[in-house]
């Protein structure tokens, strides 16, 4: 049941991302709720790899649908981040809001760097100064709101299978 609720949460988050969140932009940048979903599913479904990957791909497909990418960059990258987080959380104990926030911060930076590199390869150039501004603000903003979003979803984490 928890998995289906999470599926619904991803759909709701995606609708929020493309509607309401534009009014919470800081210096023209909004947080990435899709990546927050990926980190959450990776933490929650740490022992259910298949579901973590499926939900990450689902989030990626939705993000790509509302983006301008030629192909599904996020569909490719999200399961990769999910795998890395699961691998990491099996080796390191991640049970602290600060560590969660730091993890999200790093993941957003990695994601933006890889996205920029892929875009550059495809000939879609974004000036470096704009890239740095967006990456820095987006990673900080996403990391800062992650504990709050995670807490709001806490009842779901305690929901029995």
């Amino acid at each position, binding site marked *: 049941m928890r998995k289906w609720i999470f599926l619904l949460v991803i759909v709701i988050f995606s609708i929020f991302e*493309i509607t309401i969140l534009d009014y919470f932009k800081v210096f023209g940048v909004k947080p990435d709720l899709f990546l927050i979903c990926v980190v959450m599913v990776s933490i929650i479904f740490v022992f259910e790899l298949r579901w973590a990957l499926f939900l990450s*791909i689902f989030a990626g497909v939705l993000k790509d649908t*509302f983006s301008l990418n030629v192909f599904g960059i996020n569909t490719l990258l999200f399961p990769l981040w999910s795998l890395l987080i699961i691998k990491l959380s099996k080796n390191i104990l991640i049970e602290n809001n600060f560590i969660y926030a730091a993890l999200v911060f790093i993941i957003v930076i990695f994601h933006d760097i890889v996205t920029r590199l892929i875009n550059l390869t495809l000939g879609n150039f974004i000036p470096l100064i704009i890239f740095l501004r967006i990456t820095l603000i987006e990673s900080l903003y996403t990391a800062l709101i992650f504990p709050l979003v995670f807490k709001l979803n806490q009842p779901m984490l305690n929901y029995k299978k």
Partner: protein
Amino acid sequence: MNPRLNSFKKKNLIYLVIFVLLVLLLSSLIPALRQPILNTLKYPLSLLTLIRREVGGVIFYHRNFIQVERLKKEIGLLKQKLNAENEIYLENRRLKELLHLKQESSFKVIAARVIGRSADNWSSVIIIDKGSYNGIKRGSVAITYLGLVGRVIETTASTSRLMLINDTNFAVSSIVQRSRQEGLVSGALGNSLIMKYLPQDCDIKVLDVVITSGLTDAYPKGLLIGTVIDIGEEFSGLRRYAIIKPAVNLSNIEEVLIIVP
């Protein structure tokens, strides 16, 4: 080596290869998936936009009230101005007829409501609730009564996607209204635009109004783009650039007009 362990590893490897191939396939299918997903989510998006608008109206009641009073005064002034302009327009039309000048066809517009925005920070895109069924085509120009907004880059039967003028991939040939100085306006993914390729001796000043030049076929001449707020020199020292504040507040557009031929 243990044959059972070997077979387990082989099995896992096969699963991994199948998984990677499936993800690659799905990723290449994304452009085809956009249309059905957008059409499915059109109504929840419209509903959420409506709720947000109504809640915003209640929360910002006082601000809106003051704004309405101010706008009422402004309308009075503008009506007077419009009457004067109308006289000039009629005079202009009469003179053009006298000179047998070819009349430019006035464009038809379709009003559409904004129902969604870009999911990432790397593009500046909005989704509207009208599509090819309503006559919107790829490449159509979008405006508001304040000025240029962007152009249509994708259409489905009932929705369209617009690239806003502050997207880095957007570029439109433009001129400074006062001096007729030409340049290329493009976006910077923020609240301002950049007018590039200005010569060192260009005649441009802060507060100059920038409009479309009509050199780019798709954009009719004279659409208001914005006002110059800063002028700088490129790193190479060969050219100058101007920072432009868009006439339209791109972060909270609710309705747009699509120009159709």
